[in-house]
């Protein structure tokens, strides 16, 4: 039986892991490769690296990171942050990344999804989308949640899947950082409507939240950063708890 996945997310700036709350109060949290290796040993099913470096040096540092991670760890990983062309993705995938995640660049130029899927296959293309609930429904935001677009979340995800996105990484900005649980209602609707794997992000605070996001939110994977980095929840303890709730997870 296909297991539900637990995915720690590492924010990276200038080649170092940073910890912060909603991109604020960033603190150096050490070498991302060392942290990644520890998570892999503890039983993480996959890893996501998100480069939040603001400069044009990003491309080079991200490729170097992808190569170092691929050399050190034996589980799949995704890299994202500023990928806007086939060339950007090529550099990262050939450095050893398994998938690339695209966000704002895909909204600005949706054909990017088709180009990546045609070149590398759908399985390499993760569409990351940040959204917030309004009176009209769920609205897509760009640039790490700073720019509202007026675009409907479900319409955009549907278009992205049609264009070749092989996986969706949905972050609810309303839930992100709250530690109050995932956006299960929206996730369940998304999981039912679109037949590609769905990664839930935003809101993880307790073990129960992960059980809920799989049972109620129908997510295929759950992503979290803070609760793992700050040591509030250990991956082996979390996975054992989920397993005990009769949800299929990989136990080492």
């Amino acid at each position, binding site marked *: *039986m*296909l*297991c*539900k*996945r637990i995915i720690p997310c590492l924010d990276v700036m200038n080649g170092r892991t940073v910890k912060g709350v909603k991109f604020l109060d960033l603190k150096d949290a050490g070498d991302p490769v060392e942290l990644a290796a520890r998570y*892999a040993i503890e039983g993480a*099913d996959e890893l996501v690296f998100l480069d939040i470096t603001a400069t044009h040096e990003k491309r080079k540092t991200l490729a170097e990171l992808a*190569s170092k991670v*691929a*050399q050190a760890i*034996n*589980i*799949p990983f995704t890299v994202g942050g500023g990928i806007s062309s086939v060339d950007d993705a090529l550099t990262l*995938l*050939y*450095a*050893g990344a*398994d998938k690339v995640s695209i966000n704002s660049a895909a909204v600005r130029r949706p054909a990017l999804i088709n180009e990546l899927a045609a070149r*590398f*296959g*759908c*399985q*390499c293309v993760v569409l990351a989308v940040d959204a917030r609930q309004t009176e009209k429904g769920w609205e897509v935001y760009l640039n790490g949640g700073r720019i509202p677009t007026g675009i409907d979340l479900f319409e955009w995800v549907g278009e992205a899947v049609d264009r070749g996105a*092989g*996986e969706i990484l949905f972050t609810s900005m309303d839930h992100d950082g709250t530690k109050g649980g995932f956006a299960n209602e929206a996730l369940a609707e998304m999981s039912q409507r679109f*037949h*590609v*794997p769905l990664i839930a992000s935003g809101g993880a605070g307790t073990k129960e939240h992960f059980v809920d996001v799989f049972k109620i939110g129908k997510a*295929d*994977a759950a992503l979290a950063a803070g609760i793992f980095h700050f040591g509030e929840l250990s991956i082996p303890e979390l996975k054992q708890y989920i397993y005990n709730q009769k949800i299929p997870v*990989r136990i*080492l």
Partner: protein
Amino acid sequence: MNQVTIIDYGAGNLASVMFALKRMGIEPVLTSDPEVLIKAEKVIFPGVGHALAAMDALKAKGLDVVIPKLTCPVLGICLGMQLMCTHSQEGNVAGLGIFNEIVYQFEPNQKVPHMGWNTIFKLSDPLFAKIQEHSSVYFVHSYYVPVSKYTSAASYYGKAFSAALQKDNFYAVQFHPEKSGVIGEQILKNFISL
């Protein structure tokens, strides 16, 4: 220790396979030269991408002719395994014909790609020495090979399918041993000690 040769034809997971071997202390040879390949002691045939594009890349280098003739142990991974079959629905392309099987697309009544860790069972060849039944390995694929006489490990996604195939000196896995943690490393070790 035998020399391990990886077929270099532009497959997406080439770096990952190479790094996995290096972690095991093995320095693999990368080649797209049929002359080098025919003399190899162990061959890994990786693959991520589209079947049609991959077959074109193999043909361009004459690798489609040499791979079926290899007599040393050969391990196909993911798309590599699918290309070792007779035909793939992906791009409606003829494969290398090592395994007389057709590669089918997963029905869209479930999520595709089949992505993530899934269990393997009915393990029945030396590749799976020391591997327990129902161990989890990492899959990512949209096409599958049905269970057949060649099946040396099965998995289940809506239906049972071949997680591994074996015939004579040819071994193949649908999952990614290079991304399957310590279980995957053991499978690679088993292949290298064949």
